[in-house]
C-alpha cells in the first residue's frame, strides 16, 4: 500500500495473466515479511539495478532519466498509460483484500460471543453435581456406621470355624494316617502329615498337641519303615520305586543315603550277573552241563520280571541249540549274556536312578540340597566300578578266544558288546565306559591280528613239514634218477609222492589261500554293519599298520627269514634240510618276488582301502627281501649238492692207494655215481627252473678228446721235463694258458636257471677233485685211472653246464696235476681211454 509499489507495479505486471500476477503479489508480500523462498534470485539479480522498478534500490530519478534518454515520446506516452493502468489495478486489489479481512474478523467475534454463553450454563450444572455427591457421601457414612458391629462378628465367627476345622483335622490325623497306612496310600499319608507337621511343631508345648504329634511321629516312622522296606525289597516296579523314593525324600530321609541304598541294592543284583559271567570263565568242571545252564535260571527270572529291559535280542536266541552242553559257551553267547544281563540291567539301573534322583523336578527345600550333582557323582563312580569288573571279565574271555577258526563269531560278539555300550553312552553322557569299551575292542583286534600272524606262521611251518615228509617219502622208482619219471606218472597213483612242481604249487596255493582267508576274517572287523568299524582306529591304523604291516608284511618277512634260516642252521655238512626243500623254497621265494608279493599287497590294499598315514614297507623292499632269500637258498642248494658230490670224490681219492693200483679196466663206480647224481640233480632243478642260456658248443662235444693235453700238450709239458731247462717252458705255457682263461670263481652266486645251478655244482665238485688229487702221489696206473675217469666225466658233464670250456679247463687241470704228482707219468693212449669209457 505504499506509494512506491503502486508506482512500480505497472512496469512489471503483465496485464493478461491473472494467476501470475497474483503470485507476484504474494511474492512481494512474502518479501516484505522476510519470507523469501522464491524470487530470491530475482531479488539478487535485481538488487543492484536502480532502474528496476521492483527492486529495493529503485531510484525514480535515475529511472526517469533513463526513460527520458532512451525512449521516444510515443514510447513515453505508452509507458505512462501502462503505468497508470497498473496503479489502478493495484488499488483495486488492495481494496479487495481489506474487505475480505474485515469479513473474517466479524465472524470471529460472533463465535466468541456464543462460546461465552455456553460456558455459563455449564457452570451451573457442575454446581448441582457437587451438591449431590456430598449428600451421597453422607448417606454412605451413615450406613457403614450401622453395619460395623455385625461385620466384626461375622469375621470372628468364620475364623473360629476354620480353626475348628484345622483342629478337627489334627485330631483326626493319627486315625487318618493309620487308615492310609492300612490302605497303603502312602502318598496321601505323607501329604497329610506334611500339612500338619508345622502346626504340630509350633504347638508342641501344649500337651494335647504333643500327644497328636507323638502319635503322628510314631505312625510316620512306621510308614517310613514300611517305605524303606518296600524300597529295600526292590521287587516293586520302577514307578513304585520312584514313588517310594519321592516319599522318602519328602519325609526328610537324607538323599545321599537313599542313593547309596539304591545303588548298593542295584549293585548286589549286578554283581550276581557278573558272578554268573565269571562262573562261565572258569574252566568247565566235571559237571559241565550244569555249569552252563545253572546261572541261567536266575537272570531269566529277573528278565521276565522286568519287562522294561527291552533288549532287542531276546534271551531265547542265546540258547544255541548247536552248542553241545558239555562245551563251554562260545564268545558270542558269553557277550550276549553279558549284554542282556549285565549291561541291560545296568542301563535300567542308570535310567531309573536318573529318573529318581537326577531328573526329578526339584521343589521346595529339596532344590537347595543340590541332589543331582551328588547323585550323578555317585552314579558315575558306581558305573565305573562295575564296568571295570565287567570289562576285565570280557577281556579275560576275549583272551581265551585263541582258536582262529571263525572270526565272525568274535567280531559279532565284539560288535554286540560295543553296540550295547552305546546305550550306556546315551544314558550317561559323561561316562568313560564306552571309550573303555572301544579300547577293549581295539585291543582285541590287535590281539587278533597277532594271533592270525602266529597262525599263518605255524601254518607255513606245518606246510613245510608236510613238504618235507612228501619229499622224504620213498620214491616208487627207487633210483634217485627216477624223479623225472614221476613227473608224468604221479597223477595216477594216489600214494605216489607228489613231484616237486606239484608240491610247489600246492604249497604256494595253500599259503595264498590261507592268507586270503585270514584277510577275509580280518576284514570282518571293518565291515560296514559293524558299529566300531567307523572308529578312527579301524579306519586308519588298523588297516595300514595292523593288517598290512603287522599281518601281511610280517608274514612275508617271516617266510623269507625262515627260508634263510635253512641256509644257516642246517650247517655246512648238508644238515637236516633236504636239498630238494631248499630248491623248492628258493623257487617259492622267487615266485614271491616276481608276482605273489605284489598280488597279496594289492589285494590287501584293495580290500582294506588302506590310506597310508605312516610310511609303510614298500613292495619293492619286500620283493628285494624275497629275491635275496631265493638267491641265498639257491646258492645254498648248490653248495649242499656240490658238497655231497665233492665228498664222494674226495673219499674216492683219499682212500685209494694210487701208487700201487692196477691198470685201469673200467671207469670207477664213483664217477658213474657222480654222473648219475648230477643227472638227477639236473632233473630235479629242471622241474622248477628254466633251462637258462648256455654258450654254443660244438655238435660233438662228448667226443672231444683229451688229446689237447694228454697227447700233444701234455707231451710238451711233461715229457721234456727231464731236461733241466724245460720246466720253465712248461710253467710258462701253463701260465700263459691261465692268463687267457678266466679265473674260475668256485662258490659264486648262481643265476635262477638250471644251467647256472648245475654249473655251480659241477665247478665245486671238480675243484675239490683237483685239490684232492694234488695232495696224493700217483703211480703210472693211478694217473691212467684218473685219465679214464676224467674222460668219462667229460663225456657226460659238458651238457649240464653253461660253458663246456669250464669243464674242459678243470678236467685239464686235474689230469695235469695228477701227472705232476705221478712218479711215473706214462699217459694212456687216447683210443684206449675212449674204449674203456664207452664200455661204461
Amino acid at each position, binding site marked *: 500500500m505504499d506509494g512506491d509499489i503502486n508506482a512500480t507495479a505497472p512496469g512489471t505486471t503483465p496485464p493478461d495473466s491473472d494467476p501470475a500476477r497474483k503470485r507476484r503479489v504474494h511474492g512481494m508480500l512474502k518479501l516484505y515479511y522476510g519470507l523469501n523462498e522464491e524470487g530470491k534470485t530475482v531479488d539478487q539479480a535485481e538488487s543492484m539495478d536502480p532502474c528496476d522498478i521492483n527492486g529495493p534500490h529503485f531510484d525514480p530519478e535515475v529511472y526517469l532519466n533513463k526513460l527520458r534518454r532512451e525512449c521516444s515520446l510515443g514510447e513515453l506516452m505508452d509507458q505512462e498509460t501502462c503505468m497508470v493502468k497498473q496503479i489502478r489495478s493495484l488499488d483495486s486489489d488492495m481494496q479487495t483484500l481489506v474487505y475480505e479481512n474485515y469479513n473474517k474478523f466479524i465472524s470471529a467475534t460472533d463465535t466468541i460471543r456464543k462460546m461465552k454463553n455456553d460456558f455459563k450454563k455449564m457452570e451451573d450444572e457442575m454446581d448441582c453435581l457437587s451438591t449431590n455427591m456430598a449428600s451421597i457421601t453422607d448417606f454412605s457414612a451413615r450406613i457403614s456406621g450401622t453395619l460395623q458391629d455385625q461385620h466384626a462378628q461375622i469375621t470372628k465367627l468364620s475364623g473360629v470355624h476354620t480353626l475348628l476345622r484345622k483342629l478337627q483335622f489334627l485330631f483326626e490325623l493319627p486315625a487318618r494316617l493309620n487308615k492310609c497306612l492300612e490302605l497303603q496310600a502312602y502318598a496321601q499319608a505323607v501329604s497329610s502329615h506334611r500339612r500338619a507337621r508345622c502346626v504340630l511343631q509350633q504347638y508342641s508345648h501344649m500337651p494335647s498337641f504333643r500327644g497328636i504329634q507323638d502319635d503322628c511321629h510314631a505312625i510316620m516312622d512306621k510308614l517310613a519303615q514300611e517305605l524303606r522296606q518296600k524300597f529295600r525289597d526292590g521287587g516293586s516296579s520302577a514307578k513304585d520305586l520312584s514313588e517310594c523314593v519321592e516319599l522318602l525324600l519328602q519325609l526328610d530321609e537324607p538323599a545321599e543315603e537313599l542313593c547309596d541304598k539304591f545303588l548298593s541294592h542295584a549293585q548286589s543284583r549286578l554283581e550276581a550277573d557278573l558272578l554268573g559271567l565269571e562262573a562261565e570263565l572258569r574252566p568247565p568242571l566235571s559237571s559241565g552241563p550244569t555249569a552252563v545252564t545253572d546261572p541261567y535260571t536266575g537272570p531269566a527270572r529277573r528278565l521276565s520280571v522286568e519287562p522294561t529291559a527291552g533288549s532287542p535280542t531276546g534271551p531265547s536266541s542265546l540258547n544255541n541249540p548247536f552248542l553241545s552242553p558239555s562245551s563251554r559257551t562260545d564268545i558270542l553267547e558269553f557277550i550276549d549274556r553279558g549284554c542282556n544281563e549285565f549291561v541291560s540291567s545296568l542301563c535300567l539301573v542308570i535310567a531309573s536312578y536318573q529318573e529318581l534322583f537326577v531328573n526329578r523336578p526339584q521343589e521346595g527345600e529339596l532344590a537347595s540340597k543340590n541332589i543331582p550333582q551328588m547323585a550323578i557323582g555317585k552314579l558315575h563312580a558306581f558305573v565305573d566300578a562295575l564296568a571295570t569288573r565287567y570289562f576285565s571279565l570280557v577281556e579275560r574271555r576275549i583272551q581265551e578266544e585263541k582258536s582262529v577258526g571263525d572270526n565272525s563269531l568274535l567280531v559279532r560278539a565284539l560288535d554286540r558288546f560295543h553296540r550295547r555300550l552305546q546305550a550306556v553312552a546315551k544314558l550317561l553322557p559323561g561316562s568313560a565306559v564306552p571309550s573303555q569299551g572301544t579300547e577293549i575292542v581295539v585291543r582285541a583286534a590287535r590281539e587278533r591280528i597277532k594271533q592270525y600272524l602266529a597262525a599263518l606262521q605255524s601254518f607255513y611251518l606245518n606246510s613245510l613239514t608236510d613238504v618235507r615228509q612228501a619229499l622224504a617219502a620213498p620214491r616208487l622208482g627207487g633210483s634217485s634218477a627216477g624223479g623225472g619219471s614221476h613227473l608224468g606218472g604221479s597223477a595216477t597213483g594216489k600214494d605216489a609222492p607228489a613231484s616237486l612242481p606239484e608240491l610247489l604249487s600246492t604249497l604256494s596255493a595253500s599259503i595264498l589261500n590261507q592268507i586270503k582267508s585270514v584277510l577275509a576274517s580280518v576284514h570282518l572287523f571293518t565291515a560296514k554293519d559293524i558299529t566300531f568299524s567307523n572308529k578312527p582306529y579301524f579306519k586308519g591304523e588298523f588297516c595300514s599298520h595292523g593288517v598290512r604291516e603287522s599281518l601281511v608284511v610280517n608274514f612275508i618277512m617271516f617266510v623269507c627269514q625262515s627260508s634263510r634260516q635253512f641256509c644257516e642252521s642246517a650247517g*655246512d*655238512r648238508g644238515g637236516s634240510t633236504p636239498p630238494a626243500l631248499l630248491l623248492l623254497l628258493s623257487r617259492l621265494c622267487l615266485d614271491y618276488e616276481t608276482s605273489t608279493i605284489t598280488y597279496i599287497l594289492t589285494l590287501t590294499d584293495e580290500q582294506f582301502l588302506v590310506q597310508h598315514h605312516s610310511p609303510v614297507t614298500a613292495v619293492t623292499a619286500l620283493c628285494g627281501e624275497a629275491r635275496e632269500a631265493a638267491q641265498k637258498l639257491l646258492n645254498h642248494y648248490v653248495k649242499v649238492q656240490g658238497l655231497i658230490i665233492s665228498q664222494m670224490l674226495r673219499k674216492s681219492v683219499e682212500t685209494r692207494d694210487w*701208487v700201487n693200483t692196477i691198470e685201469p679196466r673200467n671207469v670207477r663206480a664213483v664217477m658213474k655215481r657222480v654222473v648219475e647224481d648230477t643227472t638227477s640233480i639236473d632233473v630235479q632243478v629242471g622241474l622248477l627252473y628254466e633251462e637258462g642260456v648256455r654258450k654254443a658248443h660244438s655238435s660233438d662235444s662228448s667226443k672231444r678228446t683229451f688229446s689237447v693235453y694228454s697227447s700233444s700238450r701234455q707231451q710238451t709239458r711233461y715229457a721234456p721235463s727231464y731236461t733241466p731247462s724245460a720246466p720253465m717252458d712248461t710253467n710258462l705255457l701253463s701260465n700263459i694258458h*691261465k692268463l687267457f682263461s678266466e679265473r674260475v670263481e668256485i662258490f659264486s652266486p648262481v643265476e635262477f636257471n638250471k644251467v647256472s645251478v648245475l654249473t655251480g655244482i659241477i665247478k665245486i665238485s671238480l675243484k675239490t677233485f683237483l685239490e684232492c688229487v694234488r695232495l696224493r*702221489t700217483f*703211480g703210472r696206473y693211478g694217473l691212467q685211472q684218473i685219465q679214464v675217469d676224467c674222460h668219462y666225466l667229460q663225456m657226460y658233464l659238458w651238457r649240464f653246464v653253461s660253458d663246456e670250456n669250464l669243464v674242459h679247463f678243470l678236467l685239464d687241470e686235474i689230469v695235469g696235476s695228477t701227472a705232476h704228482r705221478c712218479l*711215473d707219468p706214462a699217459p694212456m693212449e687216447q683210443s684206449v681211454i675212449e674204449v674203456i669209457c664207452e664200455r661204461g
Partner: protein
Amino acid sequence: MYQLYFVLQARALTSQTAESDAIRFLVGTQSLKFDNQIHIIDFDDENNIISKSVLQHQAGEIWHISASPADKAVLTTCYNKSEMDAFGLGGVSDTSESRVVTCGAVWRMPPEWESGSHESPDDPHNSHNPQNLELLCHLDNSSHGNASCVLWEPMGDGKHVISLADNHALLWDLTESSTQATISSSATLEGKGQLKFTAGKWSPHHNCTQLATANDTAIRGWDLRTMSQIYCIENAHGQLVRDLDFNPNKQYYLASCGDDCKVKFWDVRNINEPVKTLEEHSHWVWSVRFNHSHDQLVLTGSSDSRVILSNMVSISSEPFGHLVDDDDLSDGEDNHQDEKTKEPLQDSIISTYEEHEDSVYAVEWSSADPWLFASLSYDGRLVINRVPRALKYHILL
C-alpha cells in the same frame, strides 16, 4: 709287489724266524721227479732287490717247512719219501709194493751258503752247484705214521719240537746240538675211524704249554705238561680245518680256516660260537696268519688263488687303533675332528691280492719287517707284498 718264479711246484713256506734283520723266507719245493730244493729268498727292502740261494734237499718233496726260533741255520722239514726207489725206476713197480711215507727231519744249513748267495734269481747258473743241507737228525718213529708238520717251540731255545704224525702228537727233545732227538712225551687222538691231524700250532702263551691241533672239522687244545686235551671245538668248520694260528698278543684268541671258505676267530674260553667269521674267499682257505706285531692284520691264502689281508680291529689287542696318540696328533694337526670321526674302526678287507694264478697254499709274514709278507702258490710263484702304506701309517701314528 715282487714276484719270483720257481722251477718246481711248491707248498712249503716259512720265514726265517730267528733272523730279525734280513727279510728272509724259506721255500721248499715239491717235485717227484727232480731233486727238491730249499730256496732262501732274501729281500733287500732298501734297494728292492730279491736274491735267492738254493740248498739241495735230496730226501724228497717238501710238504712242510719250519725254521728254528733260536738258530738261524736250523730248520725242519716234512717230506715224502718214496720207497719205490728201492726197486728201481724201471716201471715194473706193479710187481712190488711201493710205499710213500712222510717223514720229519731237522736240518742245518751249511755255513757257506751265504757266500755264494748274491746271485740274481734269473741267473741260469744258480742251481749249478747247490750245496746240500746237513742232516741233524730224523724225527722218525715208524710206529707213529706220516708226519704232517713239525712245530718249533715258539720263542724257545730251539730244543723242543712237536711233530704231528697221523693221530699222534709227539714232543721231541733235541739234544747235543740237535743231533739227537728223543720223544719226551706224546699224545694220541682216539676215536672212531682213521683220525689224522691236519694242522697244528704251538701256542706262544702260557709259557708255551699249550698246543692246538686240527683234525677233520674239529679243533683241539692240548696241555703239553700232561699231554691231555683241554678243549675241543667240534665242528669248528663245516668241512676240513686246514690251518690254525694263535693271536700273538691275546692269549685266548685263535684263528682257523678251512674248506668251508671261512676264516673263524675263536676265544677258546667260549668255544660254542666263533667270535668272528670271515667269508671272503670263494674256495678253501689253506692258510691263516696273524701279523706278529699288529694282530689286527690277518693274512689268508686260498685255493681261489687269492690272498686277502684283513683288518680285524674289533678283536685285536689294539682295538682303538691310535687312540693313545690322538692327543699328540691333535697338537700338530688341525684335522682333529676328522680323526675323531674315523675313530671307531670297522673290521674290513684291506686288500685282495690276485697275482697268483693257482691255488695259494701258504702265506707268511716276515719275521724281520712286520709290514711285509709272502705268499706261495702251487705253480711255484712267490709273491712278496707290503701292507699298504696308508694303513701302515694309520696303525703307527
